[in-house]
């Protein structure tokens, strides 16, 4: 089968955090923890002007990055924490329920830190991925089933996220448009303020 797209696969799992990076010392970032797999895919849009022969014209190709989709597989403790983070899920002391009314979500910022980058000034490392505002498009399923012969006996749980375009961060700071959906590296490059409030991660990541 000919290869029709390019996938960059990074060796090793990554640590995922969601929350508010503008609170000092990463105090607002919730650690989902080390997850078995997390995949970020940038979504692009293309508008192509064509002639009568349906040939694309050199000056007629337009495009933009319109979003990003994140697919994350979690297990164990991570699933419990992620459930608490999900907007619709309400975690009471003795019960867990799902909000059924229509609500405007306040979106958190997601940070994906590769395992080998954790502890190496992760917040500004070029390998760290940031998505300034993410929301869930699928919150997974609760599955009861028999596990038989081979396969994953640990029952992973997959959640899908999408990125929304952020004009400001959670501290109200204006952001450069190229950093509004997804970026890697130092968040300071994306903040359009003279004295920016820095984004931070918990100390164990720096």
């Amino acid at each position: 089968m000919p290869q029709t797209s390019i996938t960059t696969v990074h060796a090793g799992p990554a640590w995922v955090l969601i929350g508010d990076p503008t609170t000092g010392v990463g105090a607002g970032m919730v650690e989902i923890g080390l997850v078995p797999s997390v995949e970020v895919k940038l979504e692009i849009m293309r508008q192509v002007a064509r002639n009568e022969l349906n040939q694309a014209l050199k000056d007629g190709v337009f495009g933009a990055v319109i979003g990003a989709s994140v697919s994350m597989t979690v297990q164990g403790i991570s699933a419990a924490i992620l459930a608490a983070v999900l907007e619709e899920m309400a975690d009471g002391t003795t019960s867990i329920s799902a909000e059924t009314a229509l609500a405007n979500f306040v979106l958190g910022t997601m940070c994906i830190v590769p395992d080998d980058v954790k502890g190496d000034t992760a917040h500004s490392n070029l390998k760290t991925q940031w998505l300034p505002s993410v929301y869930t498009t699928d919150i997974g399923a609760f599955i009861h089933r028999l596990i038989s012969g081979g396969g994953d006996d640990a029952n992973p749980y997959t959640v899908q996220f999408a990125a929304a375009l952020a004009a400001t961060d959670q501290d109200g700071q204006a952001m450069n448009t190229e950093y509004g959906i997804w970026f890697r590296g130092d968040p300071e490059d994306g903040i359009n303020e003279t004295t920016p409030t820095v984004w931070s991660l918990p100390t164990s990541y720096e």
Partner: protein
Amino acid sequence: MRALVAALTSCEVEMEGRLHLVRRPTVQQAVTVLAFAEAIQDGDASGWGELRRTVFAWLPLRLASEIVCFEPADLIQALANLLSAGLPDAKRHESDEQVVKQAARRSSWFEVIGNYAAAFGIDPEAVLSRRWTLFVAEYAEIERLRAVRQLENAAWYAGAKLGKMDDVAKRAYPGDPVYNFVEPEIMRDPEWKARQLEVIRKNRQKQASA
């Protein structure tokens, strides 16, 4: 190699003064015989029609018509003997067959065939027409490899539980099943989970008041 050669050859069977040339049964034929043997022990003779058809499809006509007239107990015994008649490596085949029968008893013949099909990446339908002796040898090998893999996983998991994380990390590769079982030290601390829930609570409060 022996299993392959055995699968490709026929064997000569002597019955009441006559020599018959018997081909190796296919997986479908062998499973029919074995399944019927088990069912008849529970008093269930509903597979008799299927067994007759199988016997006539597998054995030479003269041999089949003689055998089919035996008493059920003798019939089952005769067929069981014919399944592995004249094999060069009979002892090995016997123990391999035990492995396959046990697997079938644990789950079912569907699962055994399904596992084999998955291991070799072929259609389950295609598995049914493979030769029984080759199937048994290969299936026993699949089970052996799976047992080895599970022991390895168990060893790594035990190592991780005992805190030998470096060892685990060195041996694990991306996507390695060990990552399914082992969470980093910090995540196993109940304090850590409590901290994250606390952060979530504070964030929600901040959002609510904003």
